[in-house]
Each structure stands twice: as C-alpha cells, then as structure tokens.
C-alpha cells in the first residue's frame, strides 16, 4: 500500500509539471505573436523617420551623398536638405525616375529583407518605380500592412525662395 501511494504522488507531480509547462509555453508563445504589428509599425515609422531626419550631408552613399553621382550631376545642390525633402524636390521637378533610384539607394539595409515597402509622395507612388507581379501579390496577400505619414516641404530655389509642397509623404510596409 505504501509503495502504491508513492507512485501515485510521483505521477501526480509529473502530471502537474506537464500542465504547468504546457501553460507557460502557451502563455509565452502568445506573447511572441502579439508584438508583430508593433514591429511592422515601428519599421515603417523608422524608415520615414530615417528619411526625414537624415540630411544629404549625413549619408555616405556613392549615389546620393555629397560628391556622389547625383551631387556631381547637379541634381542635388543643398546638402542641408533631408532625404525626404530631396525626394520632394525630385517629385516637384517631375524627376520620378531619379526619386525611385534615390530611395532605393538610401534605404538599402534599413529595412530587413523579409519586408516589402512603398514610398508615396502627394498620392503618387515613387518607390518602387514599377510594380512587379510578385510585389502586387505580396501586398494583396499580406495579413498586416502598416503605413506611416509625415508632411514634407522645403525650398526649391534659394534665390527666389520658391517652395515645394507641402506634400503628404507615406511609407507602406508589410511582411512578404
């Protein structure tokens, strides 16, 4: 009788442990799933913050930075403009091709590979320049697509003080 009672308590303890382990596993896994929207939201905010807070003079980029391809061509003239303002200038001067290439160059490495994104100015999509079937399919099938918005404006011509904007700048970001 004594031996049987001992087995009973050991089995009981093991069952209780199993219940606790399953419970903790379920709770922790539910924690892991919850932050996903926040992560996508943070990424889209971060990308837009990066574009609006970084200036041309702050980046070391052979295409978009000081002394780079666009600088030498005269397409970029004010190193104090933010990247978002520069995108606004390309949009205002109807140079959307350069805008798309500029966005691709400056945002490289900022967004992890498993995410896709679009940059819109004033209701026009500037990046990507063309929508591929894979891009459209990924956008349509995603469970979570988040957007971040900001207003951009600036000086177009420093002599006359001509202004571009104010434009609505939007970043759409989702997981592939």
């Amino acid at each position, binding site marked *: 009788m004594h031996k049987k009672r001992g087995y009973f308590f050991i089995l009981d303890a093991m069952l*209780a442990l199993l219940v606790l382990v399953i*419970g*903790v596993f379920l*709770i922790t896994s*539910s*924690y892991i799933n*919850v932050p996903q929207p*926040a992560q996508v939201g943070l990424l889209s*905010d971060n990308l837009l913050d990066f574009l609006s807070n970084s200036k041309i003079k702050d980046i070391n980029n052979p295409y978009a930075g000081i002394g780079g391809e666009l600088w030498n061509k005269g397409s970029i003239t004010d190193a104090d403009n933010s990247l978002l303002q520069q995108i606004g200038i390309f949009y205002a001067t109807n140079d959307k091709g350069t805008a798309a290439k500029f966005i691709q160059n400056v945002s490289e490495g900022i967004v992890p590979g498993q995410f896709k994104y679009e940059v819109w100015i004033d209701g026009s999509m500037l990046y990507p320049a063309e929508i591929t079937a894979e891009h459209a399919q990924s956008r349509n099938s995603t469970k979570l697509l988040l957007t971040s*918005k*900001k*207003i951009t*404006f*600036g*000086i177009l011509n420093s*002599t*006359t*003080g*001509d*202004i571009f*904007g*104010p*434009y*609505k700048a939007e970043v759409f970001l989702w997981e592939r």
Partner: protein
Amino acid sequence: MGKIKRKGIFFTFISIIIMATFILIFTPQADISLQKDTHAVSARIGSIDSFVSDLESSYFDAVLRATTYKTILSLILYMNSTGSYVPNFDSAFYEVMLTGKINGVPIDSVTGRQIMANSTITDWNDRIVNTAKDTLNVNTTIIVTNISVSQAKAWSIEPRLDVNYTIKSNVAEWSRKSTITSQISIEGLNDPYYLVNTNRAYTNQIKKSSVEVNQWNIAKVREHVRNGTYIHFEDSKASSFLMRFTNTIEPSPCCGIESLANPNRLNPSDQIESYPDYLLWSHKFANNCTQLYNITGLWDEFRYFKLDFYHVALFNITSQDAVRTC
C-alpha cells in the same frame, strides 16, 4: 479516512489558489492593450508635435521668404507698369503679401505677370491646413495678425510675420502665438527709383560693388559707372532700398545705398546735376554748377559725368581728373 479526505480538500484549495495566481499574473490581454493604447497615443502626440515644430521653425520661415521675394518683385513690376511710386508702402506690402491685390485689384493683372497667383500667405496657409488634415487628421487654424518689412542692413530686408495658430486633434490641442522674421537679399532686384524717374527707360539691378571704402580711384569709379554697381558708405546720406519705393530721398545711415547714373543712358546726358542716383533725381544740385565738378577723367567713355565735392572726395578723385563745372 476522515483525516485523509480533509487533507485532499486542503491540497485542492492550494492548487486552485496557485492556478488563479498564475492566471492573474500571466494574463496577457489587459497589459498589452494598455501598452498598445499608451504607445498609440504617445506616437500620435509625437508626430503632431513634430509637425507643430516644423510649422514654426521651417514652414512659416520658408513661406515668409518666398512670399516676401515675390511681393517685392511684384511691387517693382507694378511701379514699372504704372510709372509711379507706391504712396503707402507698408499697407501695399501687407495687402499684396496676404491677398495678392493692391488697392483691391489683383497685382498680377496690372503687371501682366503671374507671380502672386496661388503664392500669397493665405494660399500657403490654406495648403498646409489641407495637407495637415489629410496627413495627420488634425484641424489647423492659422490667423495672420500682422505682416511688415523693414531694413536694418544695407543689402537685405527683414520681413516679419505675426501669427496665431491652433492645431486640434482627438488627443491634444496646441495653441501658439509666433513671430517669424527672416532676411532676404536685395541683390538682383531692379531699383524702382531708376524705373520711375526714367519712365522705364533705364533699369538698374542692385549689385554690390566689391571695392572697399578706402580703395576708390578713377579707374574703379569707371568700373562702378559701367557696371551700375551700388555702394553703402558708413553714415550714408543716400536712401535705403525700401525708401526708394516711396520716393523718400532722405539719409539712411544704416542702409543707404547709391549708384552712379550712366550719362549715356540719360536723356539728356548733360545735366547740371551730381550723378549719384539719389542726388540726380532729387535735383539737389540743379543748376548749381559752382558746386559741381566735371569728371573729365571719365569723359572719354562717360561724357558729361559730374559729381559734387563730397563725392569727389569719397571716391578719391584727384584734381587731374576733376574740373569745376563753372
């Protein structure tokens, strides 16, 4: 047996209490929704706050600069079209900046140039109000309380904009009073004084001379007349750029600028006057030839060019190149 049953109930209670504690501690819903709400509100306030800062530090300044430049340009073209001075410069500047009109008439229709259309302070305010509503879902109200322009330096003008603005969102409200000032270079603009006095026959752009005050000589005066450049002397007796809109020819010690009129572009070329612009057309030395000097050192290129004694000394012209007119 009775004792054993009581112990079982005791353990069951303990396990229920432990499970209840676990459930209470690890229930994710309440905690996360609270965090999510706090994060959403703080992110929203952050983005609107950043918009408010941008509005005050960048947008109003950019708009003030752009609109001031266009307003001054329009007023110069207006004087060119009408051939007359602006009687009340401050009120004309305010009206053109705010509405694009002068005396109730669109200034573009007088000048024949589309400069102020869609470019007044009111237009730019409407634009930011609409974009803010569309982008951040906020209601922005901007009230312009005053617009003025003054001069404290010879080569630039200082516009000033006083605004009250309110930004309302579903989470917070911002109300501010702000005064924005800026500086705009006058170089490259046409001198309105030349336009009116020559009935648009003689246009001269404001261009600063690179000659230092103590380096003047006859060769540099020749270049000065040829290029139509301007100079500001310390304690200047000339009028400032803004004073030239209203024909206020009085000394402006801080901001007076002067150029030398080219006799080849005047009709008649030979006038008994001193040829610095503000003296020539205010007739300060009219027919007073005893106080004038023919600058014969320049007559090969600028025949009949004359200066008064004060300017002969300022430009360091020697008796070799200056002969009394009579």
